[in-house]
């Protein structure tokens, strides 16, 4: 059976438990579900922040995430895949991103989730701006995120 990824780019929050349950409910072929939730921290480099605002590139965000979802589905034997990324203003403690992978065994589910998060960080067209007492600042990309994505490149 062909597995289709569920991809949503949305301003609204999402329910992590509900998304996890949706991938395994009523099935007996799923033996492992891995979920990663990215949550807004209340500080950035030691400074408290009031909120993050995520800007995105509508159209390309969906296309780019779909390309990586297809890569993951081709690379690992997944039975289900859900990716949700929020945009707009997000307060500390709120959800930003969710990746849920379902497979017969844990290794594929773990690896695919990590692969997708590494690529989302460096390739999905989203930009975070922090609000703090010092004003608003665009968050800078981290070299270690590029390194994390690069390790999945097939040699």
């Amino acid at each position, binding site marked *: 059976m062909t597995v289709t990824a569920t991809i949503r780019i949305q301003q609204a929050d999402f329910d992590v438990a509900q998304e996890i349950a949706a991938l395994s409910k009523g099935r007996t072929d799923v033996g492992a579900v891995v979920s990663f939730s990215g949550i807004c921290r209340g500080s950035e480099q030691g400074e408290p922040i009031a909120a993050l605002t995520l800007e995105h*590139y509508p*159209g*390309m965000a969906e*296309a780019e995430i779909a390309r990586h979802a297809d890569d993951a589905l081709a690379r690992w034997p997944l039975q289900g895949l859900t990716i949700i990324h929020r945009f707009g203003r997000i307060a500390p403690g709120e959800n930003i991103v969710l990746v849920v992978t379902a497979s017969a065994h844990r290794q594929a589910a773990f690896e695919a989730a990590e692969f997708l998060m590494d690529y989302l960080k460096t390739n999905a067209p*989203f930009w975070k*701006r922090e609000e703090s007492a010092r004003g608003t600042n*665009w968050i*800078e990309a981290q070299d270690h995120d590029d390194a994390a994505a690069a390790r999945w490149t097939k040699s």
Partner: protein
Amino acid sequence: MKLKYFAWVRERIGKAEEIVEPPAEVRTVGELIRWLAARDDGYAHAFEKPTVIRAAIDHAHVKPDAVISGAREIAFFPPMTGG
């Protein structure tokens, strides 16, 4: 062709999108960046470090040597910080 700008590239240029018709000798994404940077101080500021700027043609990432002929939409933005 339509150009789109995001994050601090958008803020420095002062607009989110525009239609441009670069001259025929502007053939690649890198040449388009140089042509735009010469327009005014805002563009010059946005593109002051061309190696930092990322580009996409029709919703797919491209390198500076990508040819722009036939592109409907080209976007310029800083390194991504989602996830």
